[in-house]
C-alpha cells in the first residue's frame, strides 16, 4: 500500500515537494464528484499510500530527502510545514554542509559509498513505518552531476537492501540545449546504472513539459516551479488510488506492483513515458467541458504519433494495416512515424468512467507482434475526480516513445567519448573508460531492442 519516496538532489527535492503538494490538495478536494463513501475510501487509501500518522495529526510524507547542499532541502522542509496540511519528517533528510562540485563520478564513487549507511538508515526507518511496503519511488534528474551520480548509487543500495521490493525511478530528461557540457555523459551513466537496479524508469522531458506550460497553460514566464507542478500533476494522476481491475471492490493495495506487472515484466524493456489529458490552466478549466470519446481519441493519437501533448498532434500517422508488416526501422535516426507499443496502461478518473470505450487501445496494430492486446493493455479507474478535472485520462506507455531521444543522447555522448573529451573528470574519481564502454553497450542493447519491435 505504502510508497516510500526518495527525493534525490535539487531536482528530486523540488519535484518531490510539488508531488506531495498536489496529492495533498487533491486529497482535500471538494470536487470529487462521487459519493461520500467513495470519497472516504479514496482519502483513506491516499493517506495510507503517501503519508504516515503522527501525534500532532498533521500527515507526514513518507519520504527521505537527499542532497549534497542544505539550501534546497531546508526550503522544501519549511514550505511543506507552512502549508499546514502536511509536512515532512524533519529527521528524514540527509545533506552535507558544503557542495561537492558538479561531478557524476564524484557522486557515484565517493559521496555515495561514504554516506551510504546514513542514507540507508533513513530509508529503513521510513520502510519500517509502513505496514505494507509497496515499494520505492525515486525522483532525480538524469543529467545532473553529483546529484545524479549519488542518485544512481542510492538506487543500487535500495536494490541491495530490498531485493524483492518494487523500485520505480522518476527521471527528468534534460533540456536538449542544456548548459552542462558533460550532461550527455551523465545521462548515459545514469540511465545504464538505473537500468540494472530498478524495475522501471518513468521519464519526463523538460522540453515537453516546457511546451505544455507555454501552449496549454498559457504561462508567460515559465519558472521551474511551473514545470515541476505540471510534472507533479501528471504523476498524481497516475499514483492516486484507483481500482486496478474490473470488479475490484477496494482501491488497489499494490500500486507499484500492479504497474510493474502490466508494463515492465520483460527485463529488457523498462522505459516508460507518461501522457495526461486534458491539461490546462485553472482559469480555462472553469469554462471547458470534455467528452470521453474526444479525450480517448486524442490520447490514442498522442500514443500513435508520439505527441507530447494534445495540441499539434500529427493526425496523419496511422497504425499499419493488418497483413502489412511494419516497415523495418533500420536506423532509428530516420523520423519514426508510427510508435509501436509493448504495453499500455490507461488511468481514468472522474465522471462516467464506467461508460468509457477503450476499444481503440485494444487494436492489435498498436502493439508489437509478440504480445496480444489482452495482455498488453490495462485499465485503472476511479469515479473520484482528480484535482478539479471533471474527467482526466493518463497514459503510461512502454513503447518507442523514448527511442529517438535515447539514440540522440547516446550518439552525442559517444562522439564526445570517441575524442576522449572530459573523460579525465570521471577517471579522476574511479569511473574508468571500461565502465563507460559497459554503459554504452547496455544502452545500445536497449535501443536495439526497442527499435526491433
Amino acid at each position, binding site marked *: 500500500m505504502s510508497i516510500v519516496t526518495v527525493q534525490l538532489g535539487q531536482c528530486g527535492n523540488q519535484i518531490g515537494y510539488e508531488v506531495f503538494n498536489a496529492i495533498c490538495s487533491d486529497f482535500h478536494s471538494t470536487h470529487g464528484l462521487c459519493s461520500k463513501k467513495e470519497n472516504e475510501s479514496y482519502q483513506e487509501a491516499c493517506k495510507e499510500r503517501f503519508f504516515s500518522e503522527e501525534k500532532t495529526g498533521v500527515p507526514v510524507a513518507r519520504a527521505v530527502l537527499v542532497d549534497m547542499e542544505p539550501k534546497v532541502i531546508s526550503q522544501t522542509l519549511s514550505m511543506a510545514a507552512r502549508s499546514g496540511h502536511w509536512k515532512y519528517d524533519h529527521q528524514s533528510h540527509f545533506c552535507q554542509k558544503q557542495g561537492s562540485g558538479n561531478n557524476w563520478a564524484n557522486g557515484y564513487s565517493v559521496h555515495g559509498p561514504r554516506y551510504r549507511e546514513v542514507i540507508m538508515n533513513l530509508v529503513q526507518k521510513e520502510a519500517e513505518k509502513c*505496514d*505494507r*511496503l*509497496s*515499494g520505492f519511488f525515486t525522483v532525480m534528474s538524469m543529467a545532473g552531476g553529483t546529484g545524479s551520480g549519488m542518485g544512481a548509487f542510492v538506487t*543500487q543500495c535500495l536494490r541491495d537492501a530490498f531485493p*524483492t*521490493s*518494487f523500485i520505480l525511478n522518476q527521471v527528468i530528461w534534460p533540456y536538449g540545449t542544456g548548459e552542462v557540457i558533460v550532461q550527455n555523459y551523465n545521462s548515459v551513466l545514469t540511465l*545504464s*546504472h538505473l537500468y*540494472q537496479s530498478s524495475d522501471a524508469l518513468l521519464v519526463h522531458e523538460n522540453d515537453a513539459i516546457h511546451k505544455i506550460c507555454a501552449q496549454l497553460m498559457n504561462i508567460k514566464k515559465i519558472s521551474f516551479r511551473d514545470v515541476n507542478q505540471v510534472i507533479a500533476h501528471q504523476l498524481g494522476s497516475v499514483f492516486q488510488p484507483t481500482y486496478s481491475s474490473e470488479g475490484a471492490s477496494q482501491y488497489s493495495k*499494490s500500486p507499484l*506492483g500492479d504497474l*510493474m*506487472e502490466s508494463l*515492465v*515484466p*520483460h*527485463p*529488457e524493456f523498462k522505459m516508460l513515458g507518461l501522457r495526461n489529458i486534458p491539461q490546462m490552466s485553472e482559469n480555462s478549466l472553469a469554462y471547458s467541458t470534455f467528452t470521453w470519446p474526444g479525450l480517448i481519441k486524442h490520447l490514442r493519437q498522442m500514443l500513435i504519433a508520439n505527441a507530447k501533448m494534445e495540441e499539434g498532434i500529427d493526425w496523419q500517422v496511422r497504425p499499419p494495416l493488418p497483413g502489412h508488416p511494419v516497415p523495418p526501422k533500420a536506423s532509428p535516426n530516420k523520423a519514426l512515424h508510427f510508435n509501436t507499443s509493448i504495453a499500455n496502461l490507461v488511468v481514468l478518473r472522474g465522471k462516467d468512467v464506467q461508460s468509457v470505450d477503450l476499444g481503440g487501445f485494444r487494436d492489435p496494430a498498436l502493439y508489437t*507482434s*509478440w*504480445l496480444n492486446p489482452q*495482455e498488453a493493455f490495462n485499465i485503472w479507474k476511479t469515479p473520484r475526480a482528480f484535482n478539479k478535472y471533471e474527467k482526466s485520462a493518463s497514459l503510461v506507455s512502454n513503447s518507442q516513445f523514448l527511442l529517438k531521444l535515447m539514440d540522440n543522447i547516446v550518439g552525442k555522448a559517444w562522439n564526445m567519448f570517441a575524442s576522449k573529451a572530459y573523460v579525465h573528470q570521471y577517471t579522476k574519481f574511479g569511473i574508468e573508460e571500461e565502465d563507460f564502454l*559497459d*554503459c554504452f*553497450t*547496455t544502452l545500445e*542493447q536497449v535501443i536495439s531492442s526497442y527499435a526491433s519491435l
Partner: protein
Amino acid sequence: QARRHQRAAACGMWPGRAGALPAAIGALCRALPPGSRPAPETFRLAKFNRPEAVRAGEWHLLPSKNHLANQPMSISVQGRILFVKSVLRYHGYGRPEFYQLPSDGSQGSRELLLAFSWLLNRINLLEQLLTANRVKIGDEASVCTCEDNLSNSWKDRTEIALERPLKRDVDVRYLQWLNGRLRFKWRSLHVDRQEQCKLLHKIHSYTSGCHMDQTIGHFSVTETDLIRQPDSYKQLLQLLESETSRLEAFLEWKQLEPVYCLTVFFSLQVKSRERTLPDEREFCAAVRTITEAVKLKLSDLKYHCAHKKNGMHGSYRLVFKDKRSVISKLQMEEATLKRELKRLQEECRHKLDEIAEGLVGVICIPPIKR
C-alpha cells in the same frame, strides 16, 4: 480367471451388501468440505456415464479437491478441465481415455468417476482435505525443512509432462514477458507475506502475557477477535460442529471404503474385458520391465529413507518468542544459502561460457559489473 470374476460379481450383488455402497457414497460426500460436496446421486449417474453427472460438476469437484482453493475457481470450463487433467497427470494417472475427454465438458462422467476414485486412493485425498480445512484457533505457518529427496520424483513427473512439446513457434520475448510476470507475482506475494508478518507481530506483542497457556503467552488473531467480538463464538462453534460431523463421516467411510473400491474395480474389469488379451511373450517382457523398475525405485527409496534427516514438515502454530536465538539461527541459514547461491551462480556461469564458446561469430556481453 473367469471364475474369480464371477465370485466378485456375486459379492457385489450379495443381498447383505445392497445397502453398503450407497452408505459408502453417502459417507464420502459428507466427509467432503461444504461447498465441494456433490449429491450422492451424481455418483450413480456417473456410473452409467450420464451427461447430467458431468454437468452436475464433477469437473468442478476435482479442482477444488486439490485443496489449494477454498473459493470456487472462476475460470472457464475449458481451463478447469485442462487444470484437472494436469493435476492427474502430475500424480501419474495413466488412463488415456481420460485425457481424450473433450474440453467442453460434455461427456465422460464415468471416466471422471474413475479418475476421482483413483486420486482419492492415491493421495489420501480425504485426509488431505480434512487437514487443510480444519478449524485453526492459532495463527499457523507451514514449514518444511526436509532434506531435498524430491529430485528423483520430479524427474519422473516431468517425463510424463513433456510428452507433447509445443507445436507452434513462440517468440522468446513473449516467454521472457511471462517469466517476468511470474517473478513480479512472486515478489507481490512476498510483500503480502511481509505485511502479514508485520501485523501478526503487532497482535502478538500487544497481547503478550494474556494467554492462559504460558508456553504460548499471547493471543492469536482468532483469539483476539473473540475477545473483541464475543458473539463471533457462534460462528466458531458452527465451524467446529461441521468439522466434527465431517470427521464422523470420515470414520464411517473408512469402514465402507473397500465396498466402494471393489465396485469401481469391478466396473473397470467389465470395461477391460472388452479388450483383447496381449501376446504372452510381450506380456512376460512387460512384466519383467515393470519388476526391474519397481526394484530400482524400492532400493532408491530405501537409500533415501536411511539417509533422511528428521526435518520439520507441516503446519505449526506461530508463537512469538524472544528473537535472539532465532536471529543467530537465521544468520547461519543465510550464510549457508549464500554459499549455495554462489556455487550455483558459478555453475551457471560455466555453462554459459561453454555455450558461448560453441557459438561462432557471436559476442556475448555480460551485464555491468557492480
